[in-house]
């Protein structure tokens, strides 16, 4: 008997992720130069960033505050004393010949990120998060065989967030990266702009037979989109399984993902690994964090997504899925919360926010704080539907018009509910719930649509929908659809 074919089903993919999140400070981590993206090359590099002789680094306390926000948000241990170290290597875009980073004593240790896994949640442990400076950029195009150096990015503050190898498969890795991305934006420490490199991931990937010890890992560098992260891991796992199943061995190495070819390629092997000669930077004192620092940062933290998610389920009766979707981004969650507090129907509020509001925001590539229909206005619309004053279709039309054209005409001082009522009256879009009026419309429709009536009587249930549609059309959308439906059924003898 032949042995059963070995398939990928027998393999487990193990992933740990290192993320570089650019901290949202105005100035650099060790100099006063601006961190704004997109300036002319080398216009945002001070004497410190260029590493002129004699200059010294001075730590930006705002970068420390943002690192503390992260540590507190993920339930980590904050090291009250952490140390900046020099990582020494030569590269043209590294002006000092060393990068200031944290090595043996990082500011944040431990903590966790919770991701959705199947029906429930899974905790991904964090190893550490440490402060460091970014390097500049080498520009290889446009210089005819030479390399241009742009030091605008040199000295930009980064928080390097390192996860434990707790992730199993590309989907979990992406869920983790998304959750982390959502969190750093939620707590306002990183703008999350992946095109501009504000949030980049390195994935450490290995494969093993279920239950076996960890395999040899390869690190895939600089993945700056969730799609590339997923594709790179999927490819790398296939590659490693292929090597192992072919009787080969995985060599520990650093690889680059090429999205055009959808493959990873070796960049350097372990043998090429540099000796960075880390040692504590004598230009910087150990970083001390006091109780007062911690308390101040703790007090300034917003409610975290996990807590809000829990409340949305327990207080507003939302599904776990809806609660998670609503809390993927802070302004959307806050928008929903404002609508839910003002409107009587909280589930309807969720469906509006996840439906119309999200669609409009996506079109505009805007966040919910920039929504052109304010939460109170949406709540008023939702309440009118609940009151039977307008139907949902009318509400949607009003919502669209409000979003598109009317925004500017609503004064802040105007009572929004009054204004909507006035609009309903002015536009004559109030829902018709008067039984006599609806009966008149129904009779007209039945008389004019003999064919549909016949089809319905012959057992074609869909024909009823056509008749309801005709009633709505005759009422210019104002008829209460539920009433029209019920009356049609009665008249047809159902």
């Amino acid at each position: 008997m032949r042995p059963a074919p070995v398939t990928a089903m027998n393999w487990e993919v193990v992933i740990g992720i290192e993320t570089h999140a650019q901290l949202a400070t105005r100035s650099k981590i060790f100099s006063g130069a601006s961190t704004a993206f997109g300036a002319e090359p080398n216009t945002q590099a001070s004497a410190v960033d260029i590493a002129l002789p004699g200059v010294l680094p001075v730590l930006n306390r705002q970068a420390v505050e943002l690192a503390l926000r992260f540590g507190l948000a993920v339930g980590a241990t904050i090291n009250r004393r952490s140390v900046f170290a020099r990582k020494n290597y030569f590269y043209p875009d590294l002006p000092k010949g060393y990068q200031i980073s944290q090595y043996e004593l990082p500011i944040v240790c431990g903590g966790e990120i919770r991701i959705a896994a199947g029906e429930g949640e899974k905790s991904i442990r964090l190893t550490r998060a440490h402060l460091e400076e970014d390097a500049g950029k080498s520009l290889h195009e446009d210089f005819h065989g030479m390399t241009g150096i742009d030091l605008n990015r040199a000295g930009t503050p980064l928080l390097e967030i390192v996860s434990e190898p707790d992730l199993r498969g590309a989907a979990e890795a992406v869920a983790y990266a998304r959750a982390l991305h959502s969190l750093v934006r939620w707590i306002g420490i990183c703008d999350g702009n992946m095109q501009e490199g504000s949030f980049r991931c390195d994935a450490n990937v290995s494969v093993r037979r279920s239950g076996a010890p960890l395999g040899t890992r390869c690190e895939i560098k600089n993945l700056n989109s969730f799609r590339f992260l997923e594709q790179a891991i999927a490819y790398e796992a296939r590659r490693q399984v292929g090597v192992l199943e072919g009787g080969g061995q995985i060599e520990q190495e650093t690889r680059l993902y090429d999205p055009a070819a959808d493959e990873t390629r070796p960049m350097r092997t372990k043998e090429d690994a540099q000796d960075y000669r880390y040692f504590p930077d004598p230009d910087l004192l150990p970083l001390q964090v006091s109780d007062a620092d911690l308390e101040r940062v703790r007090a300034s933290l917003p409610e975290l997504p996990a807590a809000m998610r829990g409340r949305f389920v327990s207080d507003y009766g939302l599904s776990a899925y809806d609660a998670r979707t609503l809390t993927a981004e802070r302004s959307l969650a806050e928008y929903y919360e404002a609508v839910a507090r003002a409107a009587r129907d909280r589930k309807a509020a969720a469906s509006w926010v996840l439906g119309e509001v999200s669609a409009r925001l996506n079109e505009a590539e805007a966040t919910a704080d920039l929504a052109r229909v304010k939460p109170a206005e949406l709540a008023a619309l939702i309440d009118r539907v609940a009151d039977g004053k307008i139907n949902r279709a009318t509400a949607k039309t009003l919502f669209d018009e409000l979003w598109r054209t009317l925004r500017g005409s609503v004064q802040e001082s105007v009572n929004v509910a009054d204004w909507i009522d006035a609009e309903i009256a002015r536009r004559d879009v109030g829902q018709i719930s008067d039984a006599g009026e609806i009966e008149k419309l129904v009779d007209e429709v039945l008389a004019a649509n003999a064919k549909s009536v016949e089809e319905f009587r012959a057992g074609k249930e869909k024909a009823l929908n056509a008749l309801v549609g005709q009633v709505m059309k005759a009422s210019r959308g104002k008829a209460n659809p539920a009433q029209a439906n019920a009356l049609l059924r009665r008249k047809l003898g159902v």
Partner: protein
Amino acid sequence: MLDATLSELGNALARRTLSSVELTQHCLERIGRWNGRLNAFITVDAERSLAEARAADARRAAGNAGPLTGIPVAHKDIYCTRGMPTTCGSRMLANFTSPYDAFVIERFARAGCVLLGKTNMDEFAMGSSSERSHFGPVRNPWDLDRVPGGSSGGSAAAVAARLAPAATGTDTGGSIRQPAAFSGVCGLKPTYGTVSRYGMVAFASSLDQGGPMARSAEDLALLMNAMAGHDARDSTSLERAPEDFARERSLDVAGLRIGLPRQYFAPACQAEVLARVREALAWFESRGARLVELDLPNTARAVPVYYVIAPAEASSNLSRFDGVRYGHRARDPLDLFDLYCRSRAEGFGAEVRRRILIGTYVLSHGYYDAYYLQAQKVRRLIANDLEAAFSRCDLIAGPTAPTTAYAIGANAADPVQMYLGDIFTIPASLAGLPALSIPCGFDAAGLPVGLQLVGPHFAESRLLGIAHRYQQATDWHRRVPAQTPL
């Protein structure tokens, strides 16, 4: 005039019997006459100096002069200075002009001092003889065939030969005190963090400290009043209330406990050096000071510890000199690696390359614990020893260096022999303590001997007061080198 102290010059300027322009001109003339032989200055810009002197005179005429306004000061060429080269004694920076001024340069400019020029030094401050400069060796005014000490040897020689009434230096393991001793002038290394390192080209960051060099302790105090102070641009700069470093000039030496570490009076010392130091101590004793024998058993470890830590930090600090943005760049590099290798090999001298190699080695994977980490532990022990000693005495005294100035080239083939000459100055550097050197006599060859006083942290004004009392009773510090007569 050129032999006057800073306060005498200050008085003459205040009385208008002397103008800053006259004083500056005298200095420039003397530089013109002697610098060819001494090689104390790398850069002199007479026009600039005279323009600053005229501005100082105008400031005095306008009535807002300070105690140092109009005084010419020479600066070690390690301090970044706008508008003129800052070379650090290296080919690497031979054509480098800093776009900004160091804190120390700013401070002296604010005080109204005239920038007299930039003084020669061992390349990147690595050396104890000022022989290792791209611009040639500095010569000792007491004997032109001998070294002036280093690395601040240009400043020491300039002050000794009366080319400048005062100068700045930097001290990492003795680079102010040892040249002060060899050249017969006074030099103070302040408590680490007292003078901002901003704009001082870094050698070993945890040890580097700027300080003054002059002809009397009183002058050092005046210069410290201008140099010291907090600077937010240096994270290791101390935040302390401003102090008057001359405030203990009337201090009574009676009852003072002077600690004498057994290890500082070692037989390896030149006999005449020990004799002159003992004579100075006898004077203190005659004035009521008490001499206390001390044991500092880790003294012998100071040199090896220093020559691990300082090169380690230097190997990293000097990485920025890569030929990419400024400084020496090799011609026609084949590739990036070649650019780095040749720019650095051509730009750095042998001693700098040696220390970069040592520093790189002791920080390497597998050697870090055995060398760098171990050295940091022993550094702590040495600092603890000194701290404990100050419970038994108010200051520690001894020779600044084991010998007087040696001949140029004497230690060229044996760097370790030169390193060992730093044995008495290194402990205070490792512990960040204030220490000064003042002249206390001459050997048979007519070469100056230096007395070193080391105090607890922030004891500068006390050390200066004690030295001042000694200088009121002696005239070693007023002797003029015979080879550069007035």
